[in-house]
């Protein structure tokens, strides 16, 4: 995770500059951390480590506090999000109906881990706690679409719909 990656250097630098502007804008403002994180996430799509580190150093806020805020509010994300965000429910009801097998299938088909994003930026994968649709267990959500009563064998077919 480095800003010196040569292939996208210009792109990265442009984002870095925008982050500098955001930090400048809020310099000396009390309670500025949340708005800064918001704007940083708008720039990067998520809040990677090096962005947290810059905010920490330049705003003199400990890393732990920044990380604590990011992980407290669901609106912030530590991982890049894909165009399609897949959420596999691992609540108790889904779990007993084999949700973990479905999760494994997604991992295998996409070649990513939980929290990861495919290289083309198309899919990201998350496991979540109960979404309150236990009657449909096991449940998977892809953006706004809800899939219930899934079997691992159906995973491939579903992914095709979004490709």
């Amino acid at each position: 995770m480095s800003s010196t990656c040569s292939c996208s250097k210009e792109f990265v630098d442009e984002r870095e500059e925008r982050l500098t502007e955001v930090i400048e804008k809020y310099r000396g403002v009390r309670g500025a951390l949340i708005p800064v994180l918001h704007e940083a996430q708008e720039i990067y799509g998520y809040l990677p480590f090096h962005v947290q580190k810059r905010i920490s150093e330049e705003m003199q806020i400990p890393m732990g506090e920044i990380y604590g805020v990011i992980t407290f509010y669901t609106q912030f994300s530590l991982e890049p999000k894909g165009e399609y965000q897949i959420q596999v429910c691992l609540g108790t009801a889904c779990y007993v109906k084999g949700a973990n097998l479905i999760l494994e299938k997604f991992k295998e088909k996409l070649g990513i881990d939980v929290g990861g994003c495919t290289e083309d930026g198309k899919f990201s994968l998350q496991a979540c706690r109960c979404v309150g649709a236990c009657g449909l267990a096991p449940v998977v959500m892809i953006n706004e679409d809800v899939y219930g009563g899934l079997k691992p064998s159906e995973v491939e077919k579903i992914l095709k719909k979004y490709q």
Partner: protein
Amino acid sequence: MEMVTLTIDNKKVRVPKGYTVLQAAREAKIEIPTLCFLKDINEIGACRMCLVEIKGAKKLETACVYPVSEGMEVYTQTPQVREARKVTLELILSNHDRSCLTCVRSGNCELQKLAEQLQIEELPYEGETHKRPLDNFSPSIIRDPNKCILCRRCVSMCKEVQTVAVIDVIERGFDTIISPIYEKSLNEVPCVNCGQCITVCPVGALREKNDTEKVWDALAAEDLHVIAVTAPAIRAALGEEFGFPMGTPVTSNMITALHNLGFDKVFDVDTAADLTIMEEGTELLNRIKEGGKLPLITSCSPGWIKFCEHNFPEFLDNLSTCKSPQQMFGAVLKTVYAERMGIDPAKIFVVSIMPCTAKKFEAKRPEMTSSGYPDIDVVLTTRELARMIKEAGIDFNETTRQHFDDPMGDASGAGVIFGATGGVMEAALRTVAEVITGQPLSSLDFTEVRGVEGIKEATVDVGEMEIKAAVAHGLGNARKLLERVKSGEAKYHFIEIMACPGGCVAGGGQPIQPSQVRSWIDIRSERANALYKEDKKLPIRKSHENPTVQRLYDIYFSSPGSPKAHELLHTHYTPRENYPEE
């Protein structure tokens, strides 16, 4: 002072305005149970153990943060209060890893004590629990999140008092955990190993890395010459683990117990502290005379050193190049001592007993091997030593040995007071003043640098010279002082910094006092008093008059700051990045 009168359980009490109900109850000799509360450090009303009924209030209130007012009527034992407290405690216990039998804090655990006090006999619900991995990668600190009750005392200590801020509350709801970022190990973040988080934890969620097995093995090995060296602060606090009143010096109990454990020799680290003063005092005089880097800053507190390496690299050249007394002593034992006693240094095993968890890290620094052997083999905290004494069934009341062993003998009073904030400064001033003036001091007590005020200053006239000195203890105070020096607002010749608030007597390896004690008694002063008492009593109170130190220069180092001394007794520092990019 404006006072208010209120009643607590129908008892009238008059207290200053601004007191909390908890403070007022204490005045009225009524104990209200608490769990997250730690006076001046963590007053956040988070755990709701201290609920009380206040007449006229709509709901039960938390006594630890609720301010008193005129005519207030407080009830601490109504059926509603008792029930609410019980339920709160049962909830905390329901998802706690209740493995008391194998827990390091059993018997000294605030949660366990509450469960007993409130007579929790069974738990009506079994909460969902996380099974989280133990973080035991740090050389000093073990974190066990499964025992954590989220009281946040450690976070307040690390962030507000120490300004290190490597642990915080992360995630939310059921997933909430106290942890470094990305649930990394403390070993991967700029933790300075001070252990202050351990001393405030009410439960067994934080503890030191246990190194006692290595010591048992060494003691059992036939061919090893096993030496214990004890820091000054140990004698001021070890007694607390055995029921002695706080502030009782237990020097001879300690020496006796160590011999009974089977150590071949028991030496006093204060001897090395005297040696440190000789080296550091000389360094100070040289820097002043030759226009070297000033202020000179003390280097005996390894938590402070790591903090400086991470946060103030621009001050690394200000640090004294002297090793800490612990490391100096190890180096001397494995060279001069080995040679004189005719013992193969490879067969000498040095166990240092320290009030400090950062010393475990310091002993493992790669540069601490100038004799060809590690200066120190194992570091034990005061608490670990107490556990060994208990495990061996030794009677701690036995005091058959009054003195440290020859050939090192007893140290000076100057070495003894190293354990309290301001002690190194005072010890150095005693020696430097006499060396410069060539005259004996009329009074040896530099009281300006004693006491628990966060930053202390003194200007001392020695001969023609005026030495400006400052003392800071606790890293938050150190940060403040250094910012002042950096901005040019303050100028000093000599600064003493100790990582722990109060200095070593309240170090991260010392006996743990529960909130019920440490919220109301200043353990830093109580323990420091034990050291000042001992200093007053000793026949020799100045480092340069310690005969062992004089002999070490005669037979080996020739003079303070000599090339030989530099080789064995001095070291260097490296800047450290805070959160390296992976």
